[in-house]
């Protein structure tokens, strides 16, 4: 398979790079001086694209790669891939569901605890020597608080299961109520936000869910409410979120994703009721290895004419 051209769109995993390099003819798009020149020269040998949450095979790239057969994403979110175009051209798309579900759900709960109990702020407090001068202020209890989840897919369900262990009543919003689920369903995000203490974004990003967290939802969540975003930055109207936090109209936020990563609005840096993580939802050694193995497994299966491991298209 060493002659098969695979185009990796951005740095994402040294391990994955190594494994791809040893099996295929790997092109690293970020090392290329002139993209148009590169594509002219090599497009006809590229049969696979490997992308991630940050970069995917969009319409432009797909058009530039006439021999493209498969897009294998090192992520479960596929919002950066033009899925319609892939379907149209018979290009297969694979992703990495399940292997990262637990890590992302763990981090959602971690963010909730970090915001409500001020874990990061108090770690800084101790390190600065401030404890010698006085106790840290009171924080907010997590156990028993109502958790509202947007999107009750794999990750949403895993978040719910963990929150239940903290005696949290669970409610949710999704396009349709799920028949066998005991949690309370709300037919709109605003109603969900009005009736929960902590709102967790756990749905895929698409046209319907873009800016699903808008001013109305933020107002409904209110000055004691907390927003947790483990989905995609564009799920949230970021300027609205920032002004609500700065003005105290929203109680707090735990964010792992942003509209223009790695840029984060600087107004958030001074806020104690906010926890900011650099898109590490699936960021454990174990899970990233499993994700990389899935990318490779899917590519190998495709080129050996075997069934794909985790196809989306």
């Amino acid at each position, binding site marked *: 398979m060493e002659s098969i051209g695979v185009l990796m769109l951005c740095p994402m995993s040294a391990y994955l790079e190594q494994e791809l390099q040893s099996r295929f003819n790997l092109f690293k798009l970020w090392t290329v001086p002139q993209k148009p020149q590169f594509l002219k020269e090599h497009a006809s040998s590229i049969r696979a694209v490997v992308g991630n949450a940050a970069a995917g095979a969009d319409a432009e790239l797909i058009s530039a790669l006439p021999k493209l057969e498969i897009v294998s994403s090192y992520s479960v979110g596929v919002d950066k891939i033009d899925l319609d175009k892939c379907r149209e051209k018979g290009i297969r798309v694979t992703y990495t569901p399940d292997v990262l579900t637990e890590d992302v759900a763990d*981090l959602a709960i971690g963010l909730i605890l970090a915001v409500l109990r001020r874990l*990061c702020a108090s*770690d800084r407090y101790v390190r600065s020597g401030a*404890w010698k001068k006085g106790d840290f202020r009171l924080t907010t209890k997590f156990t028993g608080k109502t958790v509202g989840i947007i999107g009750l897919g794999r990750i949403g369900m895993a978040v719910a299961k963990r929150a239940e262990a903290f*005696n949290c009543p669970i409610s949710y919003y999704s396009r349709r109520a799920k028949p066998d689920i005991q949690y309370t369903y709300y037919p709109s995000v605003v109603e969900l936000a009005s009736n929960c203490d902590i709102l967790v974004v756990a749905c895929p990003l698409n046209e319907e869910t873009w800016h699903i967290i808008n001013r109305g939802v933020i107002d409904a969540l209110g000055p004691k409410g907390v927003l947790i975003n483990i989905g995609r930055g564009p799920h949230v109207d970021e300027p609205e979120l920032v002004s609500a936090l700065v003005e105290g109209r929203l109680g707090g936020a735990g964010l792992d994703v942003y509209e223009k990563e790695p840029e984060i609005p600087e107004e958030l840096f001074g806020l104690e009721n906010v926890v900011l993580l650099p898109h590490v939802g699936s960021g*454990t050694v174990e899970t990233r290895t499993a994700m990389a193995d899935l990318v490779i497994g899917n590519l190998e299966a495709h080129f050996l004419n075997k069934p794909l491991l985790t196809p989306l298209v």
Partner: protein
Amino acid sequence: MEAHDNCQVNYEELPQILVLEPPPIMIFYGDQFLKNFRLLKAWESQLPLDQFLTIHAQSVQALLSPGRYLLTTDILQLLPSLQLVVTTSAGLDHINLPECRRRGISIANANDTYSADVADMAVGLLIDVFRKMSSADSFVRKGLWPTKGDFPLGSKLGGKRVGIVGLGSIGQEVAKRLHAFGCRISYSSRNKKPYVSYPFYPSVVQLAKDCDVLIVCCGLTQQTHHMINKDVMLALGKEGVVINVGRGPIIKEEELVQCLVQGELGGAGLDVFENEPNVPGELFTLDKVVLSPHRAVHTAETLMAMCELVKANFEAFFSNKPLPSPIVLNN
């Protein structure tokens, strides 16, 4: 005994409670929750404590004790009428229990009012250490994400073997939470718990050998003092993580610092220390450590619940009713 709204109650007739030092609930919320009692506030007097007690506290039957103030034999001897100690802590290590037993002094504590909050803190610290949340938040706030690129990977929680040291109320709440994260729970305790299905280990070293994480949830006693020492930490291993939400002296802090600095231990999440509020400076240089200033129970909801419980204990005592949260003193 209630103060009736429609008649003047003589303040002098209200039952008296001695308070040596204000507990956290009083610092945060004042003393309104005990307005139906007459508070004898020792710390407001200019007199040295022994004189104050000799002059003012001879007929005092009830004492409100914060968690950190040592209730020694010397103090108890100056309180000949004492029948009840209500402590705002769950821990009893600050009270001379044998002396109380000898004198027939009843003790009421926080019972399990704190358990959920302490368990939440333990889980929060564990996720923070494993997933490097505080370190990552700091990285972001310093503006390093755009310049330095990706943040180092953390470690997965699911499937990790968690050993809970002390399976009381707090330990059980921790177990219940971490079970939902896919952790494999086992424990050590003074005695094996009959209705618990998690594997029991009679020794902490054995527990540490078979675990990736130790979570200290037990009380501080003579037996548990410095129980988590170098042997335990070496048994836990280079990737091992220790979380302490019990009491600082349960861990031999000097050896903890050594093991962390020398890479013999993978990480630690600590809410308590041997000599609070002093924290060994070497820990400040380590990213694999998360530090919290002894506030596992300092949530508004729980402290308000604590005010209610303290009030209820005193009201019960002075009405000759059973205490809501009495301690049974074992031999």
